């Protein structure tokens, strides 16, 4: 079975600091995609960043970057210069190519402190 594990239920970080959220997954697939979604209290799931498994280069979107280690099946999210608006639940999602089925982790609640 394919699973996604987020081992940090809660984290906090001071404003302007850097924080890393961890995600590991288990699969025998070779072709897949990985996503980080952010869910603020408004409940809207917002796409943060996406990584194609066939790409060795780590994805980056402004202050958000990933550390993708395919052999270790690890996909961590780094948030630089944390802002109060980054406070949210963060979900890691695994997507085997062509299945249309996202498998989500249980989430990490991140709180950015002023």
């Amino acid at each position, binding site marked *: 079975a394919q699973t996604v594990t987020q081992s940090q239920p809660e984290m906090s970080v001071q404003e302007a600091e850097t924080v890393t959220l961890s995600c590991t997954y288990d699969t025998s697939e070779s072709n897949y995609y990985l996503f980080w979604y952010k869910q603020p209290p408004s409940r809207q799931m*917002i796409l943060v960043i996406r990584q194609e498994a066939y790409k060795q280069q780590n994805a980056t979107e402004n202050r958000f970057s990933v550390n993708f280690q395919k052999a270790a099946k690890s996909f961590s999210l780094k948030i630089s210069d944390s802002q109060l608006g980054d406070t949210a639940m963060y979900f890691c999602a695994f997507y085997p190519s062509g299945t249309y089925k996202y498998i989500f982790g249980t989430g990490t609640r991140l709180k950015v402190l002023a």
Partner: protein
Amino acid sequence: EAGVVQSPRYKIIEKKQPVAFWCNPISGHNTLYWYRQNLGQGPELLIRYENEEAVDDSQLPKDRFSAERLKGVDSTLKIQPAELGDSAVYLCASSLGLAGVSDTQYFGPGTRLTVL
């Protein structure tokens, strides 16, 4: 570009009552998804539509849940009768429906259902 629209945002009902949720996907998105998100958990897929066809409803509890997407655009998810365990957030998502490649899903704000 308008995002995925869902209504209502909140719904409180007594058990055994019926309830319905509505979703309007992003214009041009052929694939529509309904998810259920229990407290403290990630979303779990209930049903996926490609245009008006339900192509994956394996996780939908068909004894009490039903869904439709009659014209291949907006969709309704219904529960009848509701049970206490149905309390959750119901999320709708849509995507372009690109076969064989990553198809990024965009989510609506969800409906928080409370069954008393």
